[in-house]
Each structure stands twice: as C-alpha cells, then as structure tokens.
C-alpha cells in the first residue's frame, strides 16, 4: 500500500477547544456528583430494606437491584428522558434525566456495596450499643454506619469513576459532556483520533483525581488517623480530652 496517504493529526484542536472540553468535563462531574449523592442515599435505603426483617422489603430490594444493575445506561436514559415524557407528559431536562438515569443504575450497585459493608461490621458492635441502652437508630448512626462507610469508601470511589464514564452515554439525549463535546467538534473536523484521545486523557485525569480524593477521604476517617485533615477537624476534641486528662491526673 502506498505511503503517500497522509493522515493529518490536528492536535491543536485540543488546545483550541479546551474551553468546551473542560466545560464538558464539568458537566459530566456535575451530573455524576448529584447522582452520586442521590444514589448513595437510595442505595442505603435499599441495603437496609434487604437486611430488613420483612420478606416484602427484602424481595423489593432484590428485584430493584437486579433490574437496575442489568440495564445499560443508554437504555436507561432513553427511557427516562423520552419514555417518561411520552407516557406521563412530564418533561425532565437533560440534566435531570441524566441524574435520574444514573441514580437508578448506581443506587442498585451502592445498595450491594452498603449491604456487604454493613454486614461486615461484627455483630458485637450492635450488641455493645444495645447493652449500653442505645436505641436502634442511634446505634446505626453512631456505631454501624461510620464503620460501614469506611469499608465501603474504596468501592464507592471505583463506582464513582464508573458513573463519570457512564455520563458519556448521555450524549444520546444531548447532555454536553466530554464525549458529546468531542463528537460535536469531530463532526466539524473529522478528527476522531485527536478528539477521542483528548476525551480519554480527560477521563483518565479525572479518574486519578477521584482516586486521590477518595484515598484522602479514607485516610481521614481511618482510626487512628494521622491525616492532616483529620488532625485539623478534631483539634478541639483532642484539646478537650487533653484538658480532662490533665485535670484528673
């Protein structure tokens, strides 16, 4: 095959469109962060339902998890954005639809993550709380949840990277995230390699960042912790304890 077939890599496009690309990344992050908080909450609810005494709640949770774990993001967002509108006449914005679709999918995953994390807490912890006369809700809030969260955090971090990646599917409803931005630029220049490379770089960069943030968060809530953030947040408490020790000894 001839070698005079030229490929013209217009790498400068990445720089030229940096504003749009960053904006796209920002959109992806915004949608996925909103969905992260919602799906953590809903996931926790379904995790608790799965551990409930009532078979009905357990069954509900199993069905929910298995359905939404299985649906591809593409299909989910098309249903939420178009299907809902056609069936019920209520229109979600692109942003809302993206958040809802992601939340449906990932709440199912988070439910499993929470369940296994909460189940990993030794039952002696709950019993110790009960023996001290703490209420069930208090035990959950002060004893079980903080310890479960620590176990769950690395998995939440991984899942969040998955959520950001899945926003790339939402190009189909016109969400202006990174892949859609690159596609739009691409349709003007037909420079797929340059632009998909840019997208990949942005995604990898954000994955590293998310990893770093979650690691930091994990080390902060590790006990005992030497994290700077931890020491800063607990400085008052530690001073108080020191005062009590001095006063009593």
């Amino acid at each position: 095959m001839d070698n005079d077939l030229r490929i013209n890599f217009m790498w400068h496009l990445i720089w030229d469109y940096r504003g749009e690309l960053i904006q796209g990344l920002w959109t992806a992050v915004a949608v996925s962060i909103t969905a992260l908080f919602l799906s953590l909450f809903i996931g926790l609810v379904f995790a608790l339902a799965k551990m409930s005494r009532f078979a009905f709640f357990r069954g509900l949770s199993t069905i929910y998890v298995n359905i939404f774990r299985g649906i591809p993001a593409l299909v989910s967002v098309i249903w939420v954005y178009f299907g809902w509108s056609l069936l019920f006449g209520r229109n979600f914005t692109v942003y809302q639809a993206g958040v809802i679709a992601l939340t449906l999918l990932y709440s199912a995953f988070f439910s499993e993550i929470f369940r296994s994390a909460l189940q990993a807490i030794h039952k002696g912890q709950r019993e110790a709380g009960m023996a001290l006369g703490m209420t069930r809700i208090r035990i959950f809030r002060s004893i079980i949840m903080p310890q479960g969260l620590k176990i769950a955090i690395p998995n939440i971090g991984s899942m969040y990277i998955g959520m950001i990646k899945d926003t790339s599917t939402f190009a189909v409803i016109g969400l202006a995230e990174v892949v859609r931005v690159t596609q739009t630029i691409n349709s003007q220049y037909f420079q797929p390699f340059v632009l998909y490379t840019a997208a990949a770089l942005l995604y990898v960069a954000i994955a590293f960042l998310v990893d770093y943030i979650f690691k930091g968060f994990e080390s902060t809530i590790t006990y005992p912790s030497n994290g700077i953030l931890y020491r800063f947040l607990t400085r008052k408490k530690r001073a108080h304890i020191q005062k009590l020790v001095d006063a009593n000894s």
Partner: protein
Amino acid sequence: SAREDTSKLNLVKPGHLVVGMTLQFPPQMYLNSAKKPAGYDYQLLRRLARDLRLKLEIKNMDFGGLIPGLVSKQFDLVSVGLGKNPDREKSILYVREYMPYSTILVTGKGNKTRPTVDAWNVAGKKITALQGSLAAGFVKTTFPKATLVEFPLQDSAFLEVVSGRADAIVAEANLYGFFNKNNPGLLKPVAMPNLRSYFGHWTVQLGNEPLKTRLANWLCEKQEAGIVKAVFRQQMGYKMPDLPACK
C-alpha cells in the same frame, strides 16, 4: 473488456472495494428483510464494483465509526452522503456529489407558528438536528436567533419535538417521510419552501487522489449516461434533482 489495473488505487485489500456505511437510513441505505444491504447507495456501489472488477465488501457500523475507519485505512470509501465543509476537507478527501438532499422544517402537529423564516428565527425557539449534519449547519445560518440542539441519533432529534421540549426539527425530507410513515400524525412539515438543498459525497482517505479520480470519473460517466438518475428513481421512489454538471 480487459481487466482494469486497480493496483494504483491504494486499495485496502487488493481486489476488493471496502466501503464503510451505516445501513440505517432506508431507502437510501438499509438492511432489507433478508438482512442484505439494499438501497440507492448500495445499488450504485454494486455497479461501481462490477465495473472496476472489484469484490464489494460492506462494513456496516454506527456513523461514529465511519470516519475513524476511513482515516485508519479500514475502508477505501465511505458512502453515507457526507456534506462538505472546509474543515472536514483537511481530514478526508471528497470524491464528488452523488446524493441530493433537501432539508425541511418539521414541527409538532398542533404548532401554530407562521410558516416564515422570520417567525421561526426568534430567541426562545428550540430547533433540533442530527449532530454534525449539514442540517445542523443550516439551523445555525438560517435561524441564528433560535437555539440549536444536536442529537447523535436521528430518532432522538425527532422525539425531542414529539415530547414538546423542542419546537421543530430540521431534517432531510426523506427521513421525515419515513418517521411519519411509522408514527403518523405526530409531526407535520412546516409549509415553507425547502430550506436548502445540498448534495452528499463519497469520501476517500486524505491523499488517495488516484482512487478519488477513478471514482469521480466513474460517477460522471454514469451520471452523463443517465444511469445514476435511473437507479435513484427506482430506489428512492421519486425523481432525482440534477446533480452538478461534470467538467
């Protein structure tokens, strides 16, 4: 006739003509009920391959894969009716026009906006189009005050109007016809003269001048012999507007 020498055409696979297309646009190009490629583009390509004595090989994939495939030498030719613009010409090589398109403005059944450009070219009107299509370009130039929303899938762009989020869509007339046939009564064309007509091109890899020349010559030959028009009429079901004259 003597066997033609195709060795100068820089073909991906000697003896073959590998074509990338998206067989999702009936009647222009689609998979028929026997799962075989069909439509205007395909019939043209078949004749081309026969005349060049090449074996025709169709690579059917999403639109998103066509340009990467061409650039990375997976296909000799992309046949999907690409519109031309100066930016794109820096990355791929256009052969010549073969597919006439006319874009129309389509709106919801109950829409009462007057059928004039001025009535539609106002802030707050939302108009959709297929992402990166020339239709999208026309919205920008014809209705600059309106908001353009692009979708990577054609049906998303239609459904945005059906769901009432957008006021109208600019789309190729035959795509609208097809949508309406399967979902009658949801949308109606605005009784405005065709917004714009344009031509789709065959494209080959940047630098492959020999192939471009050979294909352009073949198209001109067939165009002048009236064959292109005949195939179009037979496949698309209506008369073909005139293609630009060959030099």
